[in-house]
């Protein structure tokens, strides 16, 4: 599935809910399915320190696709990571670089991607893109 398709699928899933509480509960539920980062990669090098919550992210290349694992110490942050990683994982680096995260607005979670939240998510997306750049160079 392309990143675009996955994002549309997520938008559809969230469209089923009529209030924020249901959306949040679903997001928290999704957080539990996050492919967790292996403890050995949960190092200071892989940590993205937000003022509020911490995020760890790790990438591995499988043939020509990038696979991400991650974690956070806050449940809501973890839920959003799970949503983001579902769209970015198992994709080609060039597709990851071309993708955006505008769909987060459409599922009513925009505020968590605001830099003022300082929850590490904005830096995490930057980090994911950096991995994509690094691995794309490797693929050439």
């Amino acid at each position, binding site marked *: 599935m392309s990143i675009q398709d996955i994002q549309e699928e997520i938008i559809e899933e969230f469209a089923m809910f009529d209030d924020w*509480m249901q959306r*949040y509960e679903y997001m928290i539920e999704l957080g539990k399915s996050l492919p967790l980062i292996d403890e050995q990669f949960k190092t200071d090098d892989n940590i993205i320190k937000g*003022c*509020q919550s911490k995020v760890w992210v790790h990438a591995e290349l499988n043939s020509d696709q990038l696979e991400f694992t991650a974690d956070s*110490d806050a*449940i*809501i*942050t973890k839920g959003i990571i799970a949503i983001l990683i579902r769209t970015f994982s198992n994709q080609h680096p060039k597709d990851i670089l071309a993708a955006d995260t505008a769909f987060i607005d459409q599922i009513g979670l925009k*505020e968590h991607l605001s830099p003022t939240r300082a*929850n590490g998510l904005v830096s995490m997306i930057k980090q994911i893109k950096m991995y994509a750049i690094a691995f794309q160079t490797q693929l050439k």
Partner: protein
Amino acid sequence: MFDVNNIRKDFPILSRTVNGNPLVYFDNAATSQTPNQVIEVIADYYRNYNSNIHRGVHTLSQEATDAYEAARNKIKTHFNAAKAHEIILTSGTTHSINIVASGYSEILKEGDELIVSAMEHHSNIVPWQMLCERTGAILKVIPMIQSGVLEMNVFEALLSKKTKLVFVNHVSNALGTVNPIAEIITKAHSVGAKVLIDGAQASPHLKADVQALDIDYYVTSAHKLCGPTGVGMLYGKEELLNTLPPYQGGGEMIAEVTFEKTTYADLPHKFEAGTPNIAGGIAFGAALDYMNGIGFDTIAAYEHELLEYATTKLKEIEGLKIYGEAPQKTAVVSFNINEIHPYDIGSILDKLGIAVRTGHHCAQPVMDFYKIPGTVRASFSFYNTKEEIDLMIIALNRAIQMLQ
């Protein structure tokens, strides 16, 4: 008679909604809300007499200068400074601290010692660390105990002839502890050290009499006490401010300029280079008028009632732990619930229209002391109500349900 419902009418922001719910504003320790009386003063300045101060011969400039200097006098009276020129108007607490820290880089020698408390805001740590790096001075720390009270016997042991400066907050932003500044000042003075008191968290709740307490430097920000952001003050004893070199060069702070040599202006202008925040300074004075109109004793008594009520209600929540239980506290409650991350609680509360602070509150050493990533902090002001506290308790229970 204090009537909170009447007071609330002064604050237009309190009638707005957030995410479809009436706003409950419990982030007062970060910044307080602004009453109409202060908003009007700012608008009046820009509508009627906006102009640059201290150097115009025209009427507008004279009116603006008079209003600005009248505000300085109000601040002087409020903190009971001996002279108006001991009040330096700055951009805020951080700026004020940096003026002093920067000045001391020309006064301190290698091996001199500075003492800080374990419960400081980063703004009262970092400038001094930078000062130590520049001068080779050594930074020592007064530790605290679990309840969030400073260990005064350790403080005494740290003091020596080498101690040049002690800087402590009057009230801790993360914990609400009111520190024993009278005792700290007396003991510091007994070894000849000077004391800077960070009053940012104290000044919305209690008056500091700088002469009675013999304070050397006192700093605060207007936005913590119903004034606008971007303006604050540095109080310093005249003889001390005279020995400090200027912080920034520019217009307004000079007496005479030639390319060979510039002589500096007298206090307070020596530390007020450039065009200041004129409307902000005038509004700072208006904010003090507003709060003094209600009365600081009345404010303190009512806020204490809110604190007691909130503390009791919060403690009924299973697994809730309060950080900072000093016997002398302002209306601040920092807490965590079981292992739930503060960010998660803060996010749910925001959805319900309740503004609290989450995170390390720019006081990472305090969080490290308790070995926690942060806390949820509810901080109350005299315009808050018990009903709002009830709404927070309901919201917290809802958050627990969702997050556990």
